[in-house]
């Protein structure tokens, strides 16, 4: 954060860097950002809660993302999501009990030619049929 000290304009940059390292933004960190960048906490909160990239709650060890963009949708994303939800045992937006997986849906990452796809910790599993999901998830402890 040091390089952005006292620079309110860097708010989004700072939040992104922390989010990408820590995967979520705890309250203490938001307080610290407010102090160091000289931005009122209310504005930090406004930005952090507005953007979908930022998370104000903790995530699982592995982050599953099922694309719900148009192309994936046309190629069977709903069915894929259903099987993932069943296997992991949580709905989109939730974390499972032992924090192994958090599941999210999200729109189009521009790899539509791989649809329907599931992304785990940034790794793409494209043209995924429902019966192959289990096999893929086994690799993430």
């Amino acid at each position, binding site marked *: 954060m040091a390089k952005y000290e006292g620079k309110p304009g860097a708010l989004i940059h700072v939040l992104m860097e922390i989010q990408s390292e820590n995967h979520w933004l705890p309250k203490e960190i938001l307080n610290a950002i407010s102090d160091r960048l000289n931005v009122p906490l209310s504005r930090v909160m406004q930005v952090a809660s*507005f*953007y979908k*990239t930022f998370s104000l709650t903790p995530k699982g060890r592995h982050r599953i993302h099922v694309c719900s963009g148009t192309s994936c949708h046309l190629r069977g994303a709903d069915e894929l999501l259903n099987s993932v939800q069943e296997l992991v045992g949580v709905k989109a937006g939730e974390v499972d009990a032992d924090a192994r997986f958090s599941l999210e849906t999200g729109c*189009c990452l521009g790899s539509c030619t791989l*649809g329907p796809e599931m992304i785990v910790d940034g790794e*793409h599993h494209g043209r995924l049929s429902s019966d192959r999901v289990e096999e893929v998830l086994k690799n993430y402890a």
Partner: protein
Amino acid sequence: MQRINSAAELDARREDIRAGKDADRPAIAVCSGAGCAGLSNGRVIAAFEKELESQGLAGKVDLRATGCHGLCELGPNVVIYPEEIYYVHVKPEDVAEIVKETVQGKKVVDRLVYSDPASGEKAVHLSEIPFYKYQSRNLIGNNTRINPSSIDDYIGIGGYAALAKALFGMKPEQVLDEVKKANLRGRGGGGFPAGLKWETTRNAPEKEKYVIVNGHEGEPGAFMDRAVFTGNPHLVLEGLIIGAYAIGAHQGFIYTRHDSKLLKQNIDRALKQARENGLLGENILGSGFDFDVEVHFDVGIFVSGESSALMRSIEGKNPEPRPKYIRTSVSGIWDKPSNLNNVETWANVPQIIEKGAEWYTGIGTESSKGTKMISLSGNIVNSGVVEVPFGTTLRQIIFDIGGGIPGGKKLKALHFGGAMGGSIPESLIDTPLDFDALKKVGAPMGAGALMVMDEDTDMVEMARFFLTFLTNESCGKCVPCREGIQQLLKILTDICKGEGKKGDIETMEEIADVMSAASLCSLGKTATDPLRGTLKYFREEYETNIH
């Protein structure tokens, strides 16, 4: 790396690069675009590195990880130069054979060659594959020929020559004039003439002006901007610098996706190289013109691609649109005149300056000039990035290039323009790619994401799907958009369940009218376009569910 200080030095540098390149030297271009990257292309590249080493070819063969080739459906794709042999679905296990047989032995590995799914006919070279054969790849065609991390590769194929021509051979007014004459229309959605927009910013009274690349590409199903930006970042940058010169801007911004590592990395590296080479920063090419660029990232909401929202976001604030009566070309970032164009729009500029407006207007239709990149996806055999001249019909794109509909299904509808776009039925498939013709039939091109829908698609469900997307991506600031979408979703959900009531269609039409009239930005104004379009062309699908 040595700073280039004049047009003559740039020419000399290009000569040097070309002299150092042996045209017969073998090269391997492994696609590293978003599609192939998701198909383990990294392991293919690693296998090539290892294999070149072990067959004693390291240093004798160029290996480049390139941007998207186009035919993403069949990735990972590999091109072997100088013969331009094209291999599809390449796996790490295939690599040893490719190096031994093709690179060393000049023989074709038959099983990796493209084979037409219908006729079984094979095509060995890139230019013979139907997907590529019918395209004019002016913008994306160099992707397989250059390494996006090498500025020398770009200079070697003639890069930055247009910039030198503009800086030393043309006054800013002449550059502007050329772009106006070329009738370059914005590729980000609206199709607004770029030259007129440039002129407004140029003539705005404030002295300090900005130019911006909109590389947000938030439209679902759109992936052509990142294909050209990742694969050939200097092309976009060159267009931007030329535009800045024409407009009189000394500061530029690139607004791009935060979630694509490769894109980020390639843009950052291109900027650094351009600075080191004297193509960006102070006194560009010794011309006296100063211009530099800062990169900003989107943080994951669709509405931040809207021009005024994007500018708020660059200021570090929430991306909330503002009313359109204040034009951003006159009062944008920090209230300074700011000219915003899409990635593809900027990428068109170097060729217009280099080859002239007359050449450019020779391509396309009466009102839409040049080529257009399309991201083709959905229920289509060959999904990928396509570039064709305006005037090409949708039928040619879907069948000649896209290979038709998979699984022997029938084509039902074509959808352009993402969540605020429109679907047209199969019967309109002979419509030409043209800003105005497509708008007229109700499928405005938007950024160029063409979604193909087969006979199994439920059009009412699609309308609901798009509105669901928009309710998550709207900023929620104004009532008509926020509440209107919610109401529509309620009704549509009932209709999808077969529980529609008499009068539902009329209620939806009324809400749609209010939203279009009273929403603050285009998101709310056009959110109901997919609904309207499906009501127009597929009304019976609504009616059968209304009792």
